[in-house]
């Protein structure tokens, strides 16, 4: 068994530098690598390019990095719930590359799986396809999208083991699995870190081969963005 355990978030982020490209898992505030983000804020790493479906909210998630102007460029699919993001984007302070959500996921998966590029119908005929190669297959048009290239992937799982195997919970899974192994170094933070052999090999969502470092997050706020409930009768 190849051990991937790292003592803490500080060691887990060893090697991060200004100007790097990071992938960050999560959908909205669900399943985001809270501890890695907090450490990136603390370290004051600058000029980051972030690949992440959303940009958090004003005061949580990637919003924390935006507040401090640590992010140079965001590659996301949706930014609707973050005023500071929209302000920085419209003012030109922040470079933004909006990418269809399925394309975003597949650009991660392509990097993970060794595909240089792929053809997707998403975005054909829109400004997303501008300057890109398009091609017809069976009478339908597709856009060629290259795989992402990133230095670090920061993902968050529910349970993990020493071998780097990961299990996600509910919809906190989202982009996290596709980002594992899609960057030079994948750092996984988990709510519960277990000895090798604790997880059933059949239940593992992401095999440890896609993960270089794993640590147990100190704490998780798991903030809810839209608390919607129904009344008990």
């Amino acid at each position, binding site marked *: 068994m190849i051990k991937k355990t790292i003592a803490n978030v500080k060691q887990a982020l060893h090697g991060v530098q200004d100007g790097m490209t990071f992938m960050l898992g999560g959908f909205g505030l669900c399943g985001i690598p809270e501890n890695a983000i907090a450490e990136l804020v603390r370290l004051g790493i600058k000029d980051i390019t972030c690949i992440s479906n959303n940009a958090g909210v004003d005061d949580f998630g990637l919003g924390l990095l935006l507040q401090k102007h640590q992010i140079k460029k965001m590659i996301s699919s*949706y930014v*609707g719930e973050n005023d500071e993001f929209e302000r920085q984007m419209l003012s030109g302070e922040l470079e933004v590359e*909006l990418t269809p959500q399925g394309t975003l996921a597949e650009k991660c998966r392509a990097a993970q799986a060794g595909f240089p590029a792929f053809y997707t119908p998403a975005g054909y005929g*829109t400004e997303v396809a501008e300057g890109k190669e398009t091609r017809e297959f069976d009478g339908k048009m597709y856009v060629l999208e290259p795989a992402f290239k990133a230095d670090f992937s920061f993902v968050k799982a529910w349970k993990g083991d020493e071998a780097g195997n990961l299990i996600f919970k*509910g919809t906190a*899974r989202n982009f996290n699995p*596709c980002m594992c192994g899609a960057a030079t170094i994948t750092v996984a933070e988990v709510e519960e870190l277990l000895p090798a052999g604790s997880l059933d090999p059949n239940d593992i969502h992401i095999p440890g081969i896609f993960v270089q470092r794993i640590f147990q997050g100190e704490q998780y706020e798991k903030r809810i*963005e839209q608390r*919607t409930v129904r009344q008990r009768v």
Partner: protein
Amino acid sequence: MLDKNGIAKRIAKEVKDGYYVNLGIGIPTLVANFVRDDISVEFQSENGVLGMGPFPFEGDEDPDIINAGKQTITTLPGASFFDSATSFAMIRGKHVHLTILGAMEVSENGDIANWKIPGKMVKGMGGAMDLVASAENIIVAMMHTNREGESKLLKRCTLPLTGVGCVKKIVTNLAVLEVTKEGFKLLERAPGVTVEEIVKATEGKLLVDGDIPEMKI
């Protein structure tokens, strides 16, 4: 004239037995409340869940179980969770039968714009570009006109597109319309709305063929 719930209620009638359905943010989300309970339908949310149920009871919210609108949800028996790549495999691979989403503009040839107003507002396309590029059946839920009373059913979209020639049907506060090769075909009027009002509110080519029935919801 329909309110948001009315639009959702009318769209719910388009949902057929055995359909997997993706509901966009806003009015489309309401559609789930009005689907007949004698048919079998499963709702997919592109953030990674199939078999969505109603909102949780107060105190049962789980931050790890949300829909694409970031709302806390529950799951029904037979539900499954999966990653984003798998989620869009379902969408791109045409396993999701029906997509219902909102729009800022729709054109008479089925183009849709719903993600950006240059220089003013950018929400991002989220999963909408993947959905409209892939789904066989796309229904748009929208207001017929904007706050200034200008038509949102146009000859050509003025805003950046989300997809081209993809919209099949539109349900607005005023009418149900089908997108045909000749333009918007008026199928039904909302209760109390006249054909003239719909004609006036529609900038794109509108086909009015015979008597247009009032919709039953």
